C-alpha cells in the first residue's frame, strides 16, 4: 500500500473523483434548470410550485396519487409539479427532503407522512418560511400542517362495506369478519361501527364470528378455511384489511364455496383484479388515490392563493371534484370510499 508513486496515485484520484462528481452534478443542472427557476417564481397561482413527498418512491399507490392525480391537478392550474422522497419509508426519511423544500422556498408541500411526529419540526421550519403544507393519506400531528386531506371516515368505510355485503347476499344470512390483528385500532373502530350499522339497518344479517389473520397472508388464508368449516351456512365475509381480503379471495378461488360465499372489504385493485374478473369477488372498496392526490393539490393551491386558511368552514373548489369544505381539525374529506367492480377495475393500477 505504501509505494513511492503515492503522488501520482493521489493526483489521479483527485482527477477521477472530481470528474465523476462534477459531471454528475453538471448533468443534473441542465436537466432541471427550468424546475429550479420555477421555485422562485411562485408568487401567483399560475406559477405555484407544489412538491409532493410520498412515503417512499416507487410505491404504486403513491404513483397513482402523485404522478396521476396530483400532477393532473397541478397542470390544470398551471403550477409546477415536483415529486421527491426517500427510497424507503423510515420515520425520519422525509426530513431532509422537507428541509430542502424549505431551502428552495417552495410554495406548497403535499406530504403523506411516514410518521405522525418525526417530520414535524422540519415541517414547522418550512411553514415558518411561508410554505403551505397539506398532508394526505397519513396525517401528522395537527399543529404541523395546514390541512389534512382525509381519504375516508371510519363511518364511511364501515357503511360502504356493510352495504356491499348486504347487496351481495340479499340482505339476509350469516356473515363473518376476517380482520387484521385483534388489537388493530383502525379495524376495531370499523368493526364496532359495522356492528352498529348491522343492528340498526340490517336486522336479518347475523354476524356469527370475527377472526383475526394478523395481516399475515398464510394466517388469513387458514382462518378463512376455518371460518367456512365452522359455519356451513356462511353467506358472506367482510375483510377490512388488504392482506386479509386477498388471502380470503385466494382461498375462495380454489374452494367449493367459490361463487356461493360473498367476499368484500378493503383491497387494492392489483391484488384483487384476478378475483374480480373470475367472479370470486363482486366488489370491494378503497378510496381512489388519484382523486386523493388531485384534491390535495387543489387544497395546496387554495392555501397558497389565500382562498382558505385551513380553519373550519373554509371552502374551495377542486377542479372536476367540485366544492369541498374544511371540517374540524383542518380536515378535508375526500368522500365515501370508492367501490371497485369488474367494470372499473382496469382503470386502476396500484
Amino acid at each position, binding site marked *: *500500500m*505504501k*509505494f*513511492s*508513486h*503515492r*503522488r*501520482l*496515485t*493521489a*493526483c*489521479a*484520484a*483527485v482527477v*477521477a*473523483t*472530481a470528474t*465523476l*462528481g*462534477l459531471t*454528475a*452534478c453538471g448533468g*443534473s*443542472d441542465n436537466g*432541471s434548470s427550468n*424546475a*429550479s*427557476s420555477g*421555485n*422562485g417564481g411562485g408568487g401567483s397561482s399560475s406559477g405555484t410550485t407544489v412538491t409532493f413527498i410520498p412515503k417512499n*418512491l416507487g410505491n404504486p399507490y403513491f404513483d397513482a396519487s402523485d404522478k396521476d392525480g396530483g400532477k393532473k391537478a397541478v397542470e390544470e392550474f398551471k403550477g409546477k409539479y*415536483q*415529486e*421527491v*422522497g*426517500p*427510497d*424507503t419509508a*423510515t*420515520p*425520519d426519511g422525509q*426530513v*431532509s*427532503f422537507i*428541509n*430542502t423544500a*424549505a*431551502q*428552495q*422556498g417552495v410554495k406548497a408541500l403535499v406530504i403523506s407522512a411516514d*410518521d*405522525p*411526529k*418525526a*417530520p*414535524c*419540526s422540519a415541517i414547522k421550519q418550512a411553514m415558518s418560511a411561508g410554505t403551505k403544507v397539506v398532508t394526505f393519506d397519513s396525517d401528522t400531528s395537527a399543529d404541523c400542517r395546514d390541512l389534512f386531506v382525509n381519504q375516508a371516515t371510519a363511518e364511511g368505510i364501515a357503511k360502504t362495506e356493510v352495504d356491499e355485503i348486504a347487496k351481495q347476499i340479499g340482505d339476509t344470512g350469516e356473515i363473518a369478519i376476517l380482520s387484521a390483528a385483534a388489537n388493530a385500532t383502525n379495524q376495531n373502530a370499523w368493526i364496532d361501527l359495522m356492528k352498529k350499522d348491522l343492528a340498526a339497518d340490517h336486522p336479518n344479517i347475523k354476524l356469527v364470528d370475527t377472526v383475526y389473520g394478523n395481516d399475515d397472508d398464510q394466517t388469513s388464508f387458514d382462518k378463512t378455511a376455518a371460518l367456512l368449516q365452522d359455519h356451513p351456512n356462511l353467506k358472506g365475509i367482510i375483510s377490512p384489511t388488504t392482506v386479509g381480503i386477498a388471502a380470503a379471495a385466494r382461498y375462495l378461488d380454489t374452494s367449493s364455496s367459490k361463487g356461493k360465499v360473498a367476499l368484500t372489504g378493503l383491497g387494492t385493485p392489483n391484488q384483487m383484479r384476478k378475483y374480480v374478473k373470475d367472479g370470486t369477488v363482486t366488489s370491494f372498496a378503497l378510496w381512489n388515490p388519484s382523486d386523493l392526490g388531485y384534491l390535495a393539490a387543489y387544497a395546496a393551491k387554495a392555501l397558497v392563493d389565500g382562498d382558505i386558511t385551513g380553519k373550519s368552514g373554509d371552502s374551495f373548489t377542486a377542479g372536476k371534484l367540485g366544492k369541498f369544505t374544511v371540517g374540524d381539525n383542518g380536515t378535508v374529506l375526500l368522500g365515501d370510499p370508492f367501490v371497485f367492480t369488474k367494470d372499473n377495475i382496469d382503470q386502476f393500477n396500484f
Partner: protein
Amino acid sequence: MTSATATAEAPVGRTYRPYSQPWWRRVLLTREFAIIGLLVLVFAWASANVANFNSPLTVYFLGLDNAEIMLIALPMALVIITGEIDLSVASVVGLSSVMVGLLHQDAGLSIPLAGLIAILVGVVAGALNGFLVAYVGLPSLAVTIGTLALYRGLAVGLLGTTAKTDFPDKWTTLAQEHIGTSRYPVIVIPILVLLVVFVWVLHFSSFGRGVYEIGLNDEAAHFSGVNVARTKFVLFILTAAVSAFAGIYITLRTGNARGDNATGDELKVIAAVLLGGVSIFGGRGALHGVVAGVLLIGVIQSAMRLENQTVNVINIVIGALLVLSVMSTSVLAWISRLSARRAGLGNLRRRQAVASSSRTTER
C-alpha cells in the same frame, strides 16, 4: 493477508510516507486530501451554481442531517482500521432511541438520566459485540450481522409499531438550536469534542498506534506488546456508546422514539468511512479523511436534492463515487506499474515499488 506488505514495507505500525519527499508533499498528496479537495471543489461549485445552496440554511441542515452519521463514523473508522467492522450501529441507535422513550415516558425519568441509561445499554450492547469478537475470536462481520438483527429486534419488540412522542420542548428545541446566532446547530459541539478525543486517541496515543498495528498484522501487534483483544473490545464498546448517543440525538431531534429509527444507517456510516480513505482491509486511514468523507456525501446529497434529483439518482452518484474511490488505489497502482515498466527498470527503489504494487493488486 496483510503480513507480506506489513513486514516488507512497514516495520513500524504506522504508515509513514517515504521521507525522500518534502514534508508538504507527504501530508498533502494523500487520499485524505484528495477527498478534502473534492469536498472543497463540490462545495464551491454548488455554491456558485445550485440555486439556494449558498444560504445559511444549507450549513445548518448539513449539520443536523448528517450529525448521527458523523458521530458514529468517528469510532467506526477506528474499528475498520483494526480490520474489523461493526454492522450493528444503526440497531444500537434504534435501541437507544426506544430506551430513552420508554424510560422518559413510562418510567418518568428525566432526559439526562434516561439518556445516561440508554448509553449504558449501548455499552452493554457493544461489550457483547466486543466480547464475541475479541475474546471468543469470532469474525466481526458474522457477529455484528447477528447483533444487527438482535438489537433491532429488541428495539422493535419493546415498542412494537407505536412511538413515544411526548418529549419536553426544552430538549427537542435544544437538539436543533443554533449555536448563538451562527449557522451551526448545537450538535456540532459534541461532534467537535468527540472529534478531538478520537483524533488524540488514534493519532497521538499508543492505543492508536496499536489500532494501526492490529490492522496491519495482529500477530505482529501482539508480539510487539499490543493488547489486541482489549483494544478491539474497547473499540466495540466505544462505537456502541457513541451510537447510543446518536440515538438520543435522533430521538430528541425528531421528537420521536421508535424501534425502526435509523434503519439502514450502518451502511451510510461505513460508506462515508471508506470514502474518507480508510482501508477496509485495515491498517490505513485517518480521521480528517473520514470527516471529509461524511461531509462530501452530505454536500453532494444536499446539492442534488436542491436540483430536484430523485433519491435514486443521488444514490447512484454516491455509490459510483465510493466504488471509484476504492478502486482508485489499485487502478493507479496498475498505471504506475505500467509507466515504470515503460521507463525501464531504473534504480532499486523503483523496482521495489513495482514489486510492492503488484502485490497490492494481487490481493
